[in-house]
């Protein structure tokens, strides 16, 4: 599934899009944190198919998951 990254998370991962398969949000988070441990330094939210999710939900192959951090600058 397509993973979209924004802001500082793009800097951590080195690109703004990833292709990762996971069964749910928790397992996706685990995979990403294993591969990019520096993601642990930042707070960010998950959105599935352009809607923010508050809990662990099942993911399907065609889903698009976005990792959204807040932006401090102004």
């Amino acid at each position, binding site marked *: 599934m397509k993973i*979209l990254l*924004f*802001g*500082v998370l793009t800097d951590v991962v080195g690109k*703004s899009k990833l292709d990762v398969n996971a069964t749910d949000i928790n397992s996706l988070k685990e995979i990403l944190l294993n591969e990019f441990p520096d993601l642990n*330094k*930042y*707070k960010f*939210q998950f*959105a599935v198919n*352009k*809607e*923010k999710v*508050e809990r662990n939900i099942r993911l399907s192959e065609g889903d698009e998951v*976005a990792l*959204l*951090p*807040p*932006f*401090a*600058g*102004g």
Partner: protein
Amino acid sequence: MKSHSYRLLQADKNSRIGVIDLIISAIMLNKEEITRYSKQLLLSEIGKAGQEKLKRSRVLVVGAGGLGCPALQYLAAAGVGTIGITDFDVVDETNLQRQLLYSSEDVNRSKAMVATEKILTLNPFIQVVPINLKFESENAIELISGYDIVLDCTDNFETRYLLNDACVLLDKPFVYGGIYKFEGQLSVFNYKEEGRNKGPTYRCAFPEMHSGQALLNCSLTGVIGTLPGIIGTLQANEVIKMITGIGEVCSGKILVLNTLTLSFAEIKINRNENLWCDIPKSIEELKTKIYFLSSPGVLI
């Protein structure tokens, strides 16, 4: 005796006329304003009624930096009747690349004062209130209370959470703008549209702050100058829409702009009061809450 009473009556009548004139001038457009705003008056969506709503409105801009400068220019030019400008900082040479209200000769001068002078030159028919103070727990409620809409043009998470909490307690909508290098975010929080439920707040989008992330501001990460110009202008645009009641307000979602790929993404956000546990329960509680922490990694 008769003539004395007559003079008194005349004076009373004149002062009454003076007050009435003042009231009329505060809510109605004069000839010069009708010319000045003619291109907005031509828009059937705005017209005279919308322009008078702008004139009667009061908007507070918190932060006169990258986002605040363009927002202030467009709000002033559009004819927002009263604009408050909160900023305790002075103009720095490194601001000039993106904060276009300021010129080289303004370096080291108060941003709130310079911004006030500049936008009053742009539009002398509005009222501008410079507030050369740091926006803090102790004064947040007092500063926001007199305004209809607030703009979050700040450059740190602490002030953003404080501003959110104060607006929630005072039931005011606020327009959030945030930037990072080449990317920007925009949303209208705590907005109630007629016939709909109230929209989400900043804490519904980002429930808790990680102060380690607070270091990611423009002065440390760098920022492309055009980005705050775009996001700040969009913030002013949302304000004009809310005041005049036109279009669809950017509530219930965060708009994310990437200026390098010129792509816009929208993330839907739901109002969720279960995420509000860090919002003070009362104005008194907010005034004593500590938002500004120095130790990194502490959640508030």
